[in-house]
C-alpha cells in the first residue's frame, strides 16, 4: 500500500474534478458530533533526529533478554542463536521474499524449504513435513482438523496441560468447525491416561498431547499410541524441538501427526512473534496434510530441481473443498530453523538439550533446599522447565527480580485458580552456573 502526500495543487485538481470546494464538503452527510469525535489530535511534527530519539526512548523502556537474565519459558525460550542464522536470513534474497507464488522460478527459496522439511522429518522422526505454518498453536489446531477430516469424526481429546495459549487457539478454531474439545484428566502435573480407553468413544478423532507439557513435565506416553489406534483415532503430539536432542521422538512414540512451536530453533523471542509452526505426519496422511509441500525432482535435462508438489490438495484448486485455509508458509522463520538445525547438527542439538536438562535440574535442586520454596511435582521427570511453589506471591518475586535484572518466571496464577502461588521457571543452555547461583541467592531472601 502506498501513501502519497498530495501537494495543494494536486488536491485542488482533485476537488475541482469532484466539484467541491474543500475536502470537508465530502463529509457533510456525517453528523457533526461524530466528526468531532474523529478528529485526531496529533502533536507537532518532529524532525528525523527528534523522532528517532523519541522512539529510542520508548524502546528503552522494554526489558529483554539481552540485559536481563531470563528464567521465562511457557512456550517461548531464551535459547542461543548462532550469529550465522541472523546473518543469512538477513540477506535480501531471503529477507524480502514472500512465500513463492510463481514457485518454480524461486529455486533457491524452494530448496531452502525442502531442506527445512527434510530436517523436520529427521528431527521428528516422521515421514513428511509441510513447508511450515504460522506458529505451534495453529499447527496443533490444524492437526486436530486434519484428524477429523481423515477419521470423519468430530471430537478431540486434549490434555489439559497443553499451553493455555495453544488451548485458546484450539477453542477458537475447533468449535467453529463443529469440532468438540474434550479434556483428559490430570494427576500430579501430568496428563492422566489411565482412563484413556474408556474416554476414546466412537466420535473421538484424535488425542492431542504436549510433552514436555506446559508445566515442564515429560508425559509418560508408554503404550498410548496403541490404545489410540485401537479405536481408529489419531495420535497428535506437540513437542519441544530442543528436547528431541535427548528425548524420544514423536515417530518413536507412534504419533500420526507431530507438531511443534519452532521458536527455540534459532528464532528470537521478539515479544511473541513471528514464530514457526512445525508440522509433520506419517506419509499415508500426506494428502490430508494442510499447507504447501516442496518436492525434489529432475528437469528435462536430468538436472536437480525443486517444485511444489501435491498442489491439488490446496486452496487454489479445490477452493470450496479445502480442509485448511493455509496457502502460505512462514518462510523466513522456517529458513532460520533450517540454518539453526544444520549448524547444530545431531551432536549440537544433543549438547544444547543436555545443558538445558542439567541446568534446570541444578536450579530445581538448589531451590528445593531453600526455606519456604518447594517443587510440587518434584518427583515427575522434567526437561528444562518446572513449577515452584513460592513462600510469597509470585508477583512480588517477579517485581523484585526485575530490579535485580532477573526474569524470575511466569506467575501460573494468571492461568488457573489452583495454580496460584506458583512460578513456572525455565532454564536453557544459555544460563551459566554463576547466573543460576546469583538467582538462588536472590530467591533465598524471600
Amino acid at each position: 500500500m502506498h501513501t502519497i502526500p498530495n501537494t495543494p495543487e494536486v488536491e485542488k485538481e482533485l476537488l475541482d474534478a469532484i466539484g467541491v470546494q474543500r475536502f470537508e464538503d465530502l463529509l457533510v452527510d456525517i453528523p457533526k458530533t461524530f466528526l468531532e469525535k474523529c478528529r485526531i489530535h496529533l502533536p507537532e511534527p518532529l524532525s528525523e533526529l527528534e523522532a528517532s530519539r523519541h522512539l529510542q526512548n520508548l524502546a528503552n523502556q522494554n526489558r529483554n533478554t539481552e540485559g536481563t537474565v531470563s528464567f521465562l519459558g511457557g512456550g517461548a525460550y531464551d535459547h542461543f542463536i548462532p550469529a550465522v542464522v541472523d546473518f543469512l536470513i538477513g540477506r535480501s534474497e531471503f529477507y524480502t521474499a514472500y512465500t513463492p507464488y510463481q514457485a518454480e522460478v524461486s529455486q533457491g527459496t524452494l530448496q531452502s524449504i525442502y531442506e527445512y522439511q527434510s530436517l523436520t522429518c529427521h528431527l521428528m522422526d516422521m515421514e513428511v513435513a509441510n513447508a511450515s505454518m504460522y506458529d505451534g498453536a495453529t499447527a496443533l489446531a490444524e492437526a486436530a482438523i486434519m484428524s477429523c477430516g481423515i477419521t470423519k469424526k468430530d471430537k478431540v481429546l486434549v490434555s489439559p496441560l497443553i499451553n493455555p495459549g495453544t488451548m485458546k487457539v484450539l477453542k477458537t478454531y475447533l468449535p467453529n468447525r463443529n469440532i468438540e474439545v474434550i479434556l483428559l484428566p490430570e494427576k500430579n502435573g501430568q496428563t492422566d491416561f489411565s482412563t484413556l480407553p474408556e474416554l476414546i468413544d466412537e466420535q473421538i478423532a484424535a488425542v492431542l498431547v504436549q510433552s514436555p507439557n506446559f508445566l515442564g513435565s515429560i508425559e509418560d506416553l508408554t503404550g498410548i499410541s496403541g490404545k489410540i489406534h485401537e479405536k481408529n483415532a489419531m495420535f497428535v503430539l506437540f513437542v519441544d524441538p530442543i528436547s528431541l536432542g535427548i528425548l524420544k521422538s514423536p515417530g518413536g512414540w507412534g504419533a500420526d501427526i507431530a507438531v511443534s512451536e519452532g521458536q527455540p530453533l534459532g528464532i528470537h523471542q521478539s515479544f511473541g512473534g513471528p514464530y514457526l509452526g512445525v508440522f509433520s505426519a506419517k506419509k499415508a496422511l500426506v494428502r490430508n496434510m494442510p499447507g504447501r509441500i516442496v518436492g525434489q525432482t529432475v528437469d528435462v535435462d536430468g538436472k536437480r530441481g525443486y517444485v511444489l508438489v501435491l498442489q491439488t490438495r490446496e486452496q487454489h484448486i479445490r477452493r470450496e473443498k479445502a480442509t485448511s485455509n493455509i496457502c502460505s508458509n512462514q518462510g523466513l522463520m522456517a529458513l532460520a530453523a533450517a540454518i539453526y538445525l544444520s549448524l547444530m547438527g545431531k551432536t549440537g542439538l544433543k549438547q544444547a538439550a543436555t545443558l538445558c536438562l542439567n541446568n534446570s535440574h541444578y536450579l530445581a535442586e538448589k531451590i528445593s533446599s531453600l526455606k519456604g520454596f518447594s517443587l510440587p511435582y518434584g518427583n515427575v521427570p522434567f526437561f528444562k522447565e518446572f513449577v515452584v511453589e513460592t513462600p510469597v506471591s509470585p508477583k512480588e518475586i517477579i517485581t523484585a527480580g526485575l530490579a535485580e535484572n532477573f526474569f524470575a518466571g511466569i506467575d501460573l496464577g494468571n492461568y488457573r485458580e489452583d495454580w496460584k502461588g506458583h512460578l513456572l521457571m525455565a532454564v536453557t543452555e544459555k544460563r551459566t552456573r554463576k547466573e543460576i547461583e546469583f538467582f538462588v541467592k536472590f530467591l533465598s531472601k524471600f
Partner: protein
Amino acid sequence: MNVPSDLLFTKDHEWALISGDEAKVGITEYAQHELGDIVYIELPVVGDPVSKGDSIGTIEAVKTVADIYSPLSGEIIEINEALKDAAELVNKDPYGEGWIARIKISDPSETKSMLTSEEYSKLIG
C-alpha cells in the same frame, strides 16, 4: 471414444453396470481422457449410505481434482482396493479394472433417469 452399450451414464461422466439390485460404477473413457494422468483416488467407505448425486470420492489428476458423484442412491458395498496403489487403472481401463465402487441400489427407478450409451455418446459428441 468407447461408450459400451450395456452401461448407463450420467451427465457428470460416471457409468453404472446394473445387475439385479446392485450397480458397479466408475468414470467414463471420456472423463479419464479429459482429466489426464490420474495419480490418486480417494475412495468411499464400505457401508456408507449414498444419495444420487453425492460425492463418493475424488479423483486427483496431475493438474486438477474432480469429484466422483454417485449415479444412484443406496449403500456402498465394495470399493476397488486396487486403485489405492494403482490409480492409473482408471486411465488404462475405465470400464474394467478401473471400476470404482459397487452400490446396493435402494431406488431402482433412478436408473430410468440415467442416460443410455446413445444419449451419452451424443452428449460428449
